[in-house]
């Protein structure tokens, strides 16, 4: 008999790698994730800039195979900006191969021919009406916009009969553009960018004029200066119906990060202990404002529910 009083256990996913890492660094990263990380799903693919693909796309099938052997579901993330036929073709090719994809631009919906998909956070499912539309289009899993408070996520997770996923760790994407700001910082243009974004595997800092941190720049993408960390919110959001917590790859030990999240969700130890253990492996600032209904760059000490 199923114990219907036991709360459902949320799963962990590794989000698509947003930064332009070297081939070797990517391969090493996914090998460890495949073999060691207590995660259920891994997103693979280029979301930020399709110019980067030639550097590593030939490795994707082998990486996917390794992840699947390690027991992970693989979902192929597609570009946030379907601006050219090249990007539309990426979506078509995955569909032709029968793969589950994450769409990050509504343009992808027109390329799909009724297949099921994962809706990425940029699809902007802020409310029930939008949720109804994307589910009608075939979304089996829906990602919450990073701006949403825990309260809003809880409403949508309860409303969604399918799977709800939420960004739970890592630098939060807060804007994307057609213009490349990484190139601009080097007085270059996107067309002749020399792949300067590859210099910064954790992104490039953009600080306030008085030196205080503000943003992280990753090519065309703007992110928070610090890592979103929300150990104290995991259990209540799990109770509210969040099915997947997404851990976005940073250069720190993501296997350890996954273990810490798994431990909190399983009740092995509490959020304060997880936070201490996380502090042992990184000195990056932490942020969590959005989930508490505040400015995203804020850090709020969490009361554990």
């Amino acid at each position, binding site marked *: 008999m199923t114990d219907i009083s036991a709360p459902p256990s949320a799963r962990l996913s590794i989000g698509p790698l947003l930064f332009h890492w070297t081939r070797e660094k990517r391969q090493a990263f996914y090998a460890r994730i495949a073999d060691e990380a207590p995660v259920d799903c891994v997103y693979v693919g280029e979301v930020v800039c399709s110019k980067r693909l030639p550097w590593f796309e030939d490795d994707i099938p082998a990486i996917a195979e390794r992840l699947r052997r390690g027991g992970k579901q693989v979902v192929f993330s597609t570009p946030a900006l379907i*601006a050219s036929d090249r990007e539309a073709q990426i979506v078509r090719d995955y569909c032709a191969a029968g793969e589950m994809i994450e769409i990050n631009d509504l343009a992808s919906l027109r390329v799909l021919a009724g297949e099921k998909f994962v809706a990425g956070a940029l699809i902007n499912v802020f409310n029930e009406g939008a949720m109804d539309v994307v589910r009608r289009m075939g979304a089996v899993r829906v990602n919450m916009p990073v701006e949403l408070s825990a309260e809003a996520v809880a409403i949508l997770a309860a409303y969604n009969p399918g799977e709800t996923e939420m960004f739970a760790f890592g630098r939060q994407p807060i804007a994307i553009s057609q213009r490349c700001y990484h190139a601009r910082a080097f007085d270059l243009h996107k067309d002749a960018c020399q792949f300067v974004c590859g210099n910064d595997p954790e992104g490039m800092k*953009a600080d306030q*004029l008085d030196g205080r941190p503000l943003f992280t720049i990753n090519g065309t993408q703007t992110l928070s200066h610090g890592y979103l960390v929300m150990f104290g919110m995991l259990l209540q959001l799990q109770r509210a119906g969040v099915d997947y917590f997404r851990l976005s790859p940073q250069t720190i030990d993501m296997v350890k990060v996954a273990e810490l999240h798994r431990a909190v969700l399983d009740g092995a130890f509490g959020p304060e202990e997880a936070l201490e253990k996380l502090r042992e492996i990184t000195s990056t600032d932490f942020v969590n404002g959005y989930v508490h209904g505040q400015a995203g760059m804020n850090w709020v000490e969490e009361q554990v529910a």
Partner: protein
Amino acid sequence: MSKYLELVCPAGTPAALRAAVDAGADTVYCGFRDATNARNYPGLNFDPDELAEGVEYAHKRHCRVLVAVNTFPRAGNPGPWRNAIDNAAAAGADAVILADLGVLDYAATKHPNLRRHLSVQAAAASPHAIRFYRETFGISRVVLPRVLSIEEVKALISQIPIEAEVFAFGSLGTMVEGRCFISSYITGCSPSMDGACAPAAHVSYKEENGCLVTRLDDVVMNRFEEDEPGAYPTPCKGRFMVRGRPMYLFEEPVALNVIPLLAELKAAGVTALKIEGRQRSRAYVGQVVAAFRKILDAAAAGTEMPAAAAELRSLAEGGKETFSAYAKGWR
């Protein structure tokens, strides 16, 4: 009467609507006094009665009225957006300008005969995206994001079955619209859900060591020397320390002005020009619309209006202009 290019003008208030109509707008766009539109600022916008009066005033003078309901409703609170659509229909508006999938769905279902325009907040910049919205929600016009070169605009228009409206004058965002959370990252106020980017209540200007420092809440957006003109601290127009030096990382505080590109835009198949600025004064709106009216009428007759063009240049924000993405090399 076929127009050279339709002139779509901002109506931030009932008075500005009348000023725009009187100055020669072909079409005006406005919003209700709540979070349902992306210019939700104090002192702006219309209640349902004011909208109905504005529609009557405009229609008498052969001017159309569009109502922006272009933000993204919060979970658990669809009411204001549904009411906005219903009130726009009841007031006789010619179209609603929408972005959220659920709002598009509601409008298409409940008011199938009310024209639906796709807001720039939907960030539909490809034929695929535009055809998706056309096929799913029956949109008649798309407002194109300000990130396409003229060649790209032309190529895109040739691949879509609906009208295209492009920004022609005023402030511009540099990020993919509707998904820019920079303002809420800093202030907690969300352009997407609250309709307010860098709202005035969060802005401060302080004299520090002979410089003017602008902030959004506690965050420094810019520092101006004595001889530098200051600019409103919209975060994507801020100056930041990057690679050890201060720079306008995202965009300089410039204004868009496409007057020298009119013939190319027309050749590209653009239907309408949109002037940005519902938050601008009635006087500004009157001046800008009158100048555009002269220039467009002259263009239709094959001539130019250099005096009007010069007047527009002086009205551009910060005194600096750009063709933005319309010219190549912006990216």
